[in-house]
């Protein structure tokens, strides 16, 4: 099919008419080809659309179109209580839900002025869950990346290992994704019995598994040729485009908020910030692998604290006006209401019932003001700009999602390269469209 427009001749391809297309294209003398990649494309990590202008196999122009997964989370939050907001933000970057929740909760806590009063055990659990989440997120980045370059083994390995992390999440929070686990003032529920053993087992298995993936890819000639010197973006480019996370660290700058502006007590953990100087896709891969190894170290330290000095401590702030009135309890059908708490409010204390009702339906008030809280998510700086007008609902919450900003690097990394390298370039950015579009 071809139609003539003011721009020139346009060929539409539906996939069934290749012969006809080849015939008409060979007749034309024009070399320029505009290809629409996405929004439904297996190599675009979700509903990302790339409009590529090609000269032969070389990309001369790359334009990114987003917005296909916009769900209006930020608007919706303005009509829910501060605590309910957690359930919304966890769905933004769905591969890193704990980071979204933590960034938001740190912001709310800062607005409330209770940042110092969040129990240490809750902070240690947050750190542990975040690092587990970082591992699972990097594993998906790696798995999808392998698949997009035609290597299915890393894909199977990555998703298999990620399953172990998701099992831990399910065991601890009741949900594999979108857990709404971190709440303003602490976390929703303490680690259940047996969680420590489960995580300990994971820590034993995982280093070997990471080595297996490294053995498959680190020196693999097919892999290195598809990744080395591809999608080059140096430090100047990263700074101008606001790129953070593994992309920035692969350009040689050891900028990691966990080190430079610590939160949740990261300054008390021992870990390194891996960097590479290659500025290419391979460097970003190496950074992600090394970060997983560092994350394991942090999880181990956090687990030691949770079983040692912080054992049995509270996981929610000791302020009855903010902390959720009850914790969940593990029943035969999973996590649910605590029968003890229900017996207490329904059977023995009218005041407790009123308190429960007020806090759950009305929520707590947050003094007016605005804060910006940032955490180092697997993809870079995840910032939450939280504004309150003094009410029980957020006045405005804006998430500075690293995927959104990093995706602006597509033209800079793809233009002038081969079309096959576009896949590597986009995969090395590791965008999650849920976070990009929110």
């Amino acid at each position, binding site marked *: 099919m071809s139609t003539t427009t003011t721009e020139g001749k346009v060929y539409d391809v539906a996939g069934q008419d290749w012969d006809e297309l080849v015939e008409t294209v060979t007749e034309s003398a024009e070399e320029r080809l505009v290809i629409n990649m996405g929004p439904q494309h297996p190599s675009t990590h979700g509903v990302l659309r790339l409009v590529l202008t090609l000269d032969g196999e070389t990309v001369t122009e790359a334009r990114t179109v987003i917005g296909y997964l916009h769900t209006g989370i930020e608007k919706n939050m303005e009509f829910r209580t501060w605590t309910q907001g957690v359930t919304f933000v966890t769905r933004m970057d769905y591969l890193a839900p704990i980071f979204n929740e933590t960034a938001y909760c740190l912001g709310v806590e800062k607005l409330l002025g209770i940042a110092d009063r969040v129990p240490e055990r809750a902070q240690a659990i947050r750190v542990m869950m975040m690092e587990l989440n970082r591992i699972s997120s990097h594993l998906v980045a790696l798995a999808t990346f392998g698949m997009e370059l035609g290597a299915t083994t890393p894909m199977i390995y990555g998703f298999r290992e990620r399953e172990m992390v998701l099992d831990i999440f399910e065991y601890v929070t009741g949900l594999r994704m979108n857990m709404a686990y971190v709440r303003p003032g602490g976390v929703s529920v303490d680690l259940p019995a047996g969680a420590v053993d489960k995580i300990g087992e994971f820590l034993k298995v995982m280093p070997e598994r990471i080595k297996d993936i490294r053995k498959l890819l680190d020196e693999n000639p097919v892999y290195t040729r598809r990744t080395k010197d591809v999608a080059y973006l140096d430090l100047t480019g990263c700074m101008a485009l606001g790129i953070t996370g593994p992309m920035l660290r692969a350009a040689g700058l050891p*900028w990691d908020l966990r080190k430079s502006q610590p939160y949740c007590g990261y300054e008390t953990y021992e870990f390194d910030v891996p960097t590479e100087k290659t500025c290419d896709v391979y460097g970003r891969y190496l950074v992600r692998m090394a970060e997983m190894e560092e994350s394991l170290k942090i999880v181990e330290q956090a687990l030691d604290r949770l079983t040692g000095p912080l054992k049995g401590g509270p996981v929610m702030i000791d302020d009855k006006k903010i902390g959720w009135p009850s914790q969940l309890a593990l029943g035969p059908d999973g996590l649910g209401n605590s029968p003890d708490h229900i017996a207490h409010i329904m059977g023995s204390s009218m005041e407790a019932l009123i308190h429960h009702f007020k806090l759950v339906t009305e929520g707590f008030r947050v003094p007016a003001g605005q804060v*910006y809280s940032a955490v180092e998510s697997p993809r870079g700086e995840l910032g939450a700009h939280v504004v309150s007008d003094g*009410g029980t609902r957020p006045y405005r919450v804006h998430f500075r999602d690293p995927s959104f*900003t990093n995706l602006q690097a597509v033209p800079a990394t793809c233009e002038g390269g081969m079309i096959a390298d576009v896949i590597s370039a986009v995969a090395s950015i590791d965008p999650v469209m849920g976070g990009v579009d929110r």
Partner: protein
Amino acid sequence: MSSENLPGVPQGEAPDQTPEPVVRRGMFGAGDTGDTSGYGRLVVRRPARLASARPYGSYFDDVADALEPVAGDAIERVVVDRDEVTFHIARERLVDVMRHLRDDPALRFELSLGVSGVHYPDETGGELRAIYHLCSITHNRRIRVEVACPDSDRHIPSTVSVYPTHDWHERETYDFFGIVFDGHPALTRIEMPDDWEGHPQRKDYPLGGIPVEYRGAETPAPDQRRSYA
């Protein structure tokens, strides 16, 4: 009737600032007869407009010292709140100030974390805000720059020339709030469809939503539910 059995009014320092405008009286939209809600005499005022005086504390004074010689007249007010500093900048001078913040060795805010918008319908003359979060990797500092524009003249100069990362962020803020960033290379919608009408994050834009019915009972749409603010 004596006032003996009424609750006491707190003594002490009298509020010296003029009270902020009233945003709302009562609760739940009830305003006809009687005080059956118990909230009838509630008066909700707009939060006070903060302005901090020197010394600001922390590194904020250093930043202000380096900024004032160049942009002293552009700084409308400085707010230090919850260990964060906000410089309110006149919109005409925004690009200059941003460039100075980026290039001055004493400031060096080389990383921008983008633009966020906020809509304050009650702040006459400055309803729409563009808020920039800047980070200095050299000095390990953060500041916030806030720029206001009236709803009747929604224009703010674009800062893409200073921070190229603002390209998409300004498009997003335009999309959601309708702020036109003059000088942006291609200011189009980014999240909403191109032919969308209205700017969804503005406070006068309804959430929409439909009531939820479950087992015969109906729960109103989220924006129609009772609010306790």
